């Protein structure tokens, strides 16, 4: 029944757009909320009734061959959590009913793309679903229709097209090598000819395409413009999961299941990861725009995931997977809070803010949880995933990269403390006296995400044994 994650939203979308405007606009939010909530529940439960059974009625017409493992569960869980948070933000921030309805449509399309990416085991199908997310992202970024939004969207679409062309060329080469596009067949063909020039070329092109999609240095130029220019609910989705599903989850999956680890690939991943960690952290230090600072922080945190993968060991990959999930949670929390601040103050300029904790106590307190988890402060979730990555780098002999990861953690703590002090601590800034706490919808979303940061960290041994460790089955081909 995993195919229901594609079929229900797709047919639901068609029904929502039937010419019954008032009724469909009223139920669109609840349909999307039920969809994402169900995704969260079935991803946590791993229940065989849902995942292993098939519906005979559906099987008569649809025979989609999806495959689910523990990495897919974690990705689907992240998709559900972030999509639900983005939907909540959209409900309270997009005042125009038509625009809100359009955004919900796009959110459902993006969730189809991300769920497809998490469940396919075929490189061409993966490419198709990456394109689904790319189309939805581009429209979300451009939807404000001002100069900066169009600039951000244009940069994104240009780089995204280059990445797509590279990935498509790689897929063509891989079909020539193996005659098939399934992960298993490709892995077999590439393992049989490790020195093949065509295989190396395909690996290089595909990985390069994914690095562009993931906004990893040196291909990160589009990311801060896109995240900061997009409307707040779109920023939550883009920063929380969308970019990572199409560029980072795919990188982990393809590297482990198709191309396999090799010394040149590990070097590329380690270098790109370290460059991202440092570039993102240093750039975040000097930002005045709240959302732009968080965007650079995302580049830095994605760098950790890539470095963990570059370690080329089981521990490194598990650390990368765990940080992928943690980053989805704490970055979504920070972007939800930035949306709440933008909604109440009308600005994202940190130089005009100050003392908002006294006016927005829930937003301020949950923001502390978000930034402490991002900075890797124990016992919050971010600490454990960063620790796993650093230990993996150290044990695999990449000690300089381990040192870079530790140093960047200190810089992360620095810029996030500066953000917290400038936005939430101290005396109330001039013109901010009348600011009130965010809508209860924002508060519930932020509190749930903050709770997740704490619970994942405090119950780390349980989470590690039950959720993270089983993900190593991706090494079994």
């Amino acid at each position: 029944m995993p195919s229901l994650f594609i079929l229900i939203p797709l047919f639901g979308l068609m029904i929502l757009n039937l010419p019954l405007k008032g009724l469909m606009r009223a139920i669109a939010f609840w349909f999307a909320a039920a969809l994402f909530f169900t995704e969260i529940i079935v991803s946590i439960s791993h229940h065989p009734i849902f995942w292993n059974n098939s519906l005979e009625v559906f099987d008569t017409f649809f025979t989609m061959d999806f495959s689910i493992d523990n990495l897919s569960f974690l990705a689907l869980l992240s998709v559900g959590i972030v999509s639900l948070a983005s939907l909540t933000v959209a409900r309270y921030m997009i005042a125009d009913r038509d625009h809100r309805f359009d955004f919900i449509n796009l959110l459902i399309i993006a969730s189809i793309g991300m769920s497809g990416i998490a469940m396919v085991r075929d490189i061409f199908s993966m490419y198709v679903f990456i394109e689904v997310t790319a189309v939805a992202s581009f429209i979300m970024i451009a939807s404000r229709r001002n100069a900066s939004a169009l600039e951000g969207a244009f940069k994104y679409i240009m780089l995204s097209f280059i990445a797509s062309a590279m990935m498509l060329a790689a897929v063509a080469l891989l079909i020539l090598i193996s005659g098939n596009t399934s992960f298993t067949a490709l892995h077999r063909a590439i393992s049989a000819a490790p020195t093949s020039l065509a295989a190396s070329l395909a690996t290089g092109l595909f990985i390069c395409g994914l690095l562009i999609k993931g906004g990893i240095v040196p291909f990160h130029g589009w990311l801060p413009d896109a995240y900061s220019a997009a409307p707040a609910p779109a920023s939550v989705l883009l920063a929380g999961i969308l970019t990572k599903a199409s560029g980072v989850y795919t990188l982990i999956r393809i590297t482990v299941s198709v191309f396999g680890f090799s010394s040149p690939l590990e070097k590329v991943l380690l270098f790109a990861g370290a460059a991202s960690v440092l570039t993102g952290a240093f750039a975040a230090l000097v930002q005045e725009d709240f959302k732009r600072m968080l965007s650079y922080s995302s580049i830095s945190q994605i760098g950790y995931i890539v470095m963990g993968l570059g370690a080329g060991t089981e521990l490194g990959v598990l650390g990368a997977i765990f940080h992928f999930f943690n980053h989805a949670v704490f970055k979504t929390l920070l972007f939800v809070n930035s949306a709440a601040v933008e909604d109440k103050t009308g600005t994202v300029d940190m130089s005009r803010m100050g003392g908002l904790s006294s006016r927005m106590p829930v937003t301020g307190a949950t923001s502390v949880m978000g930034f402490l988890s991002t900075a890797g402060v124990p016992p919050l979730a971010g600490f454990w995933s960063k620790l796993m990555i650093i230990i993996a780098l150290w044990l695999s002999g990449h000690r300089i990269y381990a040192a870079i990861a530790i140093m960047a953690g200190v810089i992360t703590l620095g810029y996030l403390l500066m953000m917290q002090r400038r936005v939430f601590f101290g005396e109330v800034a001039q013109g901010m006296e009348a600011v009130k706490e965010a809508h209860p919808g924002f508060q519930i979303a932020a509190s749930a995400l903050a709770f997740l940061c704490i619970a994942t960290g405090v119950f780390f041994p349980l989470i590690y044994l039950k959720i993270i460790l089983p993900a190593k089955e991706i090494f079994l081909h």
Partner: protein
Amino acid sequence: MAVSALWTVMCRSLLKAAIGLALTSAIITMLMFRLNSPLAAVFELSVCAGLITAVFVSTISLTKPLTHKEIMEISRERFKRFVYLPVILGLLGLALTRLKLPLDFAFPPAAPENDVRVIMWNMREIDLFGQIAVILGGAFGIVMLFREAKRR
């Protein structure tokens, strides 16, 4: 194909560029027929030359036309920027044909025996749904981005 692709990028009018894109797709279709891939050719013709051109033309109809002066300025800038593009493309093509890269694979034979229904519905059903989602995304994009123009 290269000439029509270059014309698409360089021409002044958006509408002519959309037609140039359709022409490029039509030539790619012919190449695909020549390479014994009729199925890919049919899809290239129907989706790229047909559907996408229709979407582009309807989108362009909603945009504000530029003045003659603006068009001349933009095309001058564009010419300066892309004047070396045909030369680079030519040299790159020549280099790739002369280099004889040791690409160690044999071209698999085309499989024309499967008809469209078998390939799309039995072999690539997942991709079919992905493509429907892409088309829906494009349609929502046009509705969303041009709603204001419609309102005005």
